[in-house]
């Protein structure tokens, strides 16, 4: 669909020089650059304040008006964050949650996407229509039933076979990962990609007698690396930044993720802005670094992820 066309068009921007620029006079160019610089600075300002405040000493935070440049580069706030009693645990939880969600998306979405793109089976049209239809279901308006379903998973957390009696998967990694473990968007993305791989690759393997899974695993998956990269980066980013599922599906301090931890730190009784900003910086920087390395993939994929809503 249009997704594919849009992607390839976007990459073309970089190569194609626009004749328009030749017609732009110098004066206008300077004004244009000026406006862009202003907009860029305004966009960056919250980040710059975040970093600047994270280096300030306690007393300096309460100066009014606040100064943009901190008086010294003190790393104390960062040490305070790292030595918070729960921050190590929260980092582990965030990593387990984000990696778990990423890996399960990569596996399940590519399997399903391959089946929808390349295999013949009864009910294919219905299954594909269902996936596209589920793209439109607003996930955040389902917080109550998802909570109840996670609580009532049979045989988990002391539940009997009917799902009663225990806490199910609440307060577990499995429970947190479940609502994000495969997404209609991911299946759709992978299906679109597999559809574009020439059928010849598969047919020759099939003539050699290879099984479906072997063809998928040995031939198509290696070809799908770019799509897997997009799906992986987007899944990791969205799980790392996720707030509502960890908030609802866990209530013990041991299971809090970094996002929950940051919210608790900021709303806590003895919140210090400089320490809060240090933690916000520490949470934001890894994602920005990942983005800078995978920029092309992520931006192309982001156009597609608009479908996710």
């Amino acid at each position, binding site marked *: 669909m249009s997704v594919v066309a849009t992607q390839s068009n976007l990459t073309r921007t970089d190569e194609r020089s626009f004749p328009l620029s030749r017609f732009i006079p110098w004066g206008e160019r300077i004004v244009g650059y000026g406006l862009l610089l202003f*907009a860029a600075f305004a966009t960056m300002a919250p980040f710059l304040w975040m970093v600047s405040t994270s280096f300030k000493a306690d007393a300096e935070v309460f100066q009014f008006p606040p100064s943009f440049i901190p008086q010294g580069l003190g790393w104390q706030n960062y040490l305070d964050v790292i030595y918070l009693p729960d921050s190590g645990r929260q980092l582990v939880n965030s990593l387990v949650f984000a990696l778990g969600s990423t890996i399960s998306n990569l596996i399940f979405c590519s399997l399903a996407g391959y089946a929808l793109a390349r295999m013949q089976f009864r009910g294919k049209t219905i299954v594909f229509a269902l996936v596209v239809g589920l793209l439109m*279901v*607003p996930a955040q308006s389902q917080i109550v039933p998802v909570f109840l379903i996670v609580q009532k998973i049979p045989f988990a957390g002391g539940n009997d076979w009917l799902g009663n009696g225990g806490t199910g998967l609440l307060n577990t990694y499995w429970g947190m990962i479940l609502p994000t473990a495969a997404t209609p968007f991911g299946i759709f993305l992978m299906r679109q990609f597999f559809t574009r791989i020439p059928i010849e690759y598969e047919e020759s393997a099939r003539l050699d007698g*290879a099984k479906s899974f072997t063809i998928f695993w040995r031939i198509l998956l290696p070809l799908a690396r770019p799509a897997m990269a997009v799906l992986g980066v987007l899944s990791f980013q969205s799980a790392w930044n996720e707030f509502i599922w960890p908030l609802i599906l866990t209530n013990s301090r041991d299971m809090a993720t970094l996002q929950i931890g940051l919210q608790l730190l900021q709303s806590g009784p003895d919140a210090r802005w400089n320490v809060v900003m240090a933690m916000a910086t520490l949470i934001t920087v890894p994602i920005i670094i990942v983005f800078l390395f995978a920029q092309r993939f992520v931006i192309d994929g982001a156009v597609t992820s608009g479908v996710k809503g």
Partner: protein
Amino acid sequence: MPSRSATAGPFNRSWGAYAFLAPALLILFLSLLLPAIATIGMSFTDISFLRPANWVGLDNYFRLMADGRFQQAIGNTMYYTLGVTFPTMALGLLAAVALNRKFPFRIVFRTIFYLPVLTSLIAAAVVWVYLYEPYSGPVNGLFVSLGLGPQPWLSSPNLAMMALIIMAVWRDFGTAMIIYLAGLQDIPEEIYEAARLDGASKFSILWRITVPMLGSVTFYLMIILIVQSFQVFGAIYVMTGGGPLGSTETIVFQMYQTAFGYTEFGYSAAMSTVLFFVILLFSLVGTKIMRRGEG
């Protein structure tokens, strides 16, 4: 073994395909389909944490219609949605038009405009709470240095929603920019050439050619932004908690409170059902337009 799969009929192939699909479909069933159905079912009951559920018919919906707080939440959600959607699209379009030509540092600007999209919502919200801080925050610092009085941003019922909207626009316009940049590539260069030969001004080229040609992209983007803004939760949870005086309480926030604060799951499900159908309506309209754009 190889001979078996070579001779495998469509029946065997089908089972193979089902095996490929099963895990993903099970997850989608548990996390989206069953919840969507369950929400509607639960909205006709008084289900709660401990109590066994009773069928109450349309009672929850009658209660919703008479609930002043819910009406306020609907009003707030609409205000927020409109306030976020249109400025976001306008800024996104401006940024896309500005960056849709080759010049030095173009990618740097694009990256900068896209950074807020990448930031976690909670980190962004926490930073903005600091920016809006009434006694030592940079926004009031700027206001004072411009000779304006300091404002109680997040603690004033008149300003709090506006403050949330500004932050949301800051966070979302990068998405709009990226989608518009992709859309701009689909406009044939010949149309611009022709317009320039006719001596059209820059502004009229933008207004008469670029904007209309981006029609389907714009509509698609509008639906995404509306659907996303309708579901706003995290920013409200962190920045205002629905206050002051309920002035920033939105539908999803009220759903969360009703379910997990007052444990009235049935009533919360009724709210969710209303929201669900509104969002579904917008999505369906959006998809239709998208299809038409493709054809």
